[in-house]
């Protein structure tokens, strides 16, 4: 009798399981996770809507978390077989995610590496490990020179500077001081804690003939002539030309917003914050070229990847969703909603986008942008912050300070890669 009842239970459970499987076959639901940022969520809502309209048998459920708890939640959920099938992560986290087996490589038949390298901007190569790509961006960010049009008019400068010499000259004309010699407006904002460390690493060092890192960003390579020239140029802006002060008005972007900085180097993500500032007339130009005309830029991005949890039909659905997220259409929607730049030239380099007065200079920068592979971005940035402060506050010689910073940064890289 008892055995009979048990059998009934098992049969019942099996039937239920089968029914559940049958329902999910007609409509696969996959989960997508990203961190919370209003514009990103809105853009993704729209992308999901379009995707579902084109693929009626797939539904995508988006979940978002505050940035602080994002990584922890992802790490806890996936190994437990829950959470996202497609996940968003910062490009710099790829190593950690691959090592922890949270994500799986993109299938080579749908995403052949040669095709990706042909279609995407070159810096996306950082997402390749071995023979396959593990993640792909929808949108990327780059740097450009913001300038205050009113201050340019006042100083009689007609066009934004195109090279570093013009840049220094313009900065000199834009700088204002009070009777006691205190700065009241800077020609160019500086602050190693903002975007300047990227500008030095990927732009200035290359423009002075160097290469910031060797061996896939595992070896520091700025303790040399090019590095010293680049850091010297940057340090001279304050020490020799007096056209800036580190952390003037607390934050570089605050000084620019308040109309007390003639020029400001920042990322495309700053556009939104500047758009609605009353009384500020600003323009954007490409970063000034180096002494020999070299152009360079730094790009960072968030990528989407398929998690190791996705299997079977969910995996197939996830692949389809990834295909849509990396389509030209999705990239254009992302540009219009979030203000981040398309990751493929085919979507980015349209006439309309390239000639756009605001996006244009950023998009042109993408063609020659590099992406730094960081082991620990904030710690590596700190070595550069400290380097400049040792020179400014403690009077350490430039050469000595650069050498100390190179040593410290190498130690961070060694610890990360040799564990």
């Amino acid at each position, binding site marked *: 009798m008892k055995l009979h009842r048990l059998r009934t239970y098992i049969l019942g459970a099996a039937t239920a399981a089968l029914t559940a499987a049958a329902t999910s076959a007609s409509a696969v639901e996959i989960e997508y996770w990203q961190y919370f940022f209003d514009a990103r969520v809105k853009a993704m809502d729209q992308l999901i809507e379009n995707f579902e309209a084109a693929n009626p048998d797939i539904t995508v459920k988006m979940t978002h978390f505050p940035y602080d708890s994002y990584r922890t939640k992802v790490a806890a959920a996936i190994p437990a077989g829950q959470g996202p099938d497609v996940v968003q992560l910062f490009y710099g986290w790829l190593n*950690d995610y691959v090592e922890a087996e949270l994500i799986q490589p993109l299938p080579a038949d749908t995403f052949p590496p040669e095709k990706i390298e042909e279609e995407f901007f070159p810096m996306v190569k950082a997402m390749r490990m071995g023979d396959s790509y593990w993640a792909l961006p929808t949108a990327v960010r780059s740097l450009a020179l913001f300038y205050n049009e009113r201050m340019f008019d006042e100083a009689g400068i007609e066009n934004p500077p195109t090279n570093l010499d013009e840049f220094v000259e313009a900065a000199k004309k834009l700088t204002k001081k009070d009777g006691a010699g*205190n700065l009241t407006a800077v020609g160019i904002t500086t602050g190693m804690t903002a975007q300047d460390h990227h500008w030095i690493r990927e732009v200035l060092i290359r423009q002075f003939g160097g290469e910031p890192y060797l061996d896939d960003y595992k070896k520091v390579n700025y303790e040399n002539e090019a590095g010293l020239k680049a850091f010297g140029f940057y340090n001279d802006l304050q020490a020799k030309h007096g056209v800036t002060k580190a952390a003037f008005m607390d934050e570089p972007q605050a000084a620019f917003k308040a109309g007390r900085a003639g020029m400001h180097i920042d990322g495309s993500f700053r556009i939104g914050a500047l758009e609605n500032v009353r009384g500020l007339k600003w323009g954007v130009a490409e970063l000034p070229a180096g002494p020999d005309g070299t152009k360079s830029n730094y790009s960072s991005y968030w990528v989407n990847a398929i998690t190791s949890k996705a299997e079977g039909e969910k995996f197939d659905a996830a692949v389809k969703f990834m295909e849509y997220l990396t389509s030209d259409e999705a990239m254009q929607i992302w540009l219009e909603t979030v203000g981040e730049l398309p990751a493929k030239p085919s979507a980015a380099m349209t006439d309309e986008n390239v000639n756009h007065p605001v996006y244009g200079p950023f998009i042109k920068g993408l063609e020659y942008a590099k992406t730094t592979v960081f082991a620990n971005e904030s710690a590596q940035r700190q070595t550069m912050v400290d380097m400049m402060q040792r020179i400014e506050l403690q009077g350490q010689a430039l050469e000595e300070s650069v050498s100390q910073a190179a040593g410290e940064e190498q130690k961070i890289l060694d610890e990360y890669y040799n564990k």
Partner: protein
Amino acid sequence: MRFYKNLSIPQKQIVWAWAFLALPVLFYVVIRFYPTANAFVLSFQEWNLLGDRKFVGLENYAKLFSDPVFWKVFKNTFMYLILGTPISLVLSFIIAYHLDKVRFMHGTIRALYFLPFMTSAVAMAWVWRWFYQPVPIGVFNNFLASLGFAQIEFLSSTTNALPSVLAPAVWAGLGFQVIIFMAGLRAIPQSYYEAARIDGVSTWTVLTEITIPLLKPTIVFLVVFSSIGFLRIFDQVFNMTTNNPGGPLNSTKPLVLLIYDTAFNGFNMGYAAAQTVVLFTILLVVSLIQLRLLKDS
């Protein structure tokens, strides 16, 4: 049920006591003791939040003690304590002592001292951060410049930054300490003062022989309480130096900020746990020493 019936009344009382204690005990075990024990274990492991935890023995501690930044931070943490606790205690005692004698607008003045304590530390830190800026936005420096003096580097100097960060923290804690001191002052029986007045004792003697000795329990409480507060200082430092947390050149970085940075920027959880264990030990030792020194004399 029969088991319960057979118990004596005192035994039943014990059963009920534990029944009521079960909830807080469970709460403490799950929310406090388990994570604490876990942190101790984690301090011997390597973990980046993703993937598995690996035992590495004493490596985290070895790394910590050979790290010059840790010793700098260690020194800063004690600077906050050594400067903060005595200054805030002396100031709050002086204010409480005199406020106790003031009758005119007593409530209003007391409320004004207490107000900063109720303000969010984050908001306050940001306002002070702007006060400290150089010309053209900093209040202090604009004032100096308008009088023709040279500017003072507050937050961007390796020597001035720590006291500058500490000042608002002391100011914010003042209200609370004043209230506690005043409660202590009120609790001293008036008869001692009357007896002293009859004997014609000087005000100074009254202060040193009656008031301060009888305030000892209050002082012990405030010393321990504010020491723990200064050893754990974080909000003020983090918010006043967000661009370069604990800077310039680590001159304001306290231990808690180092832990935060290691854990949530470096994702080096094992190393951060080791730092936490060190902080825990420091707090424990400092509190025990203070209780010992101040309790019995």
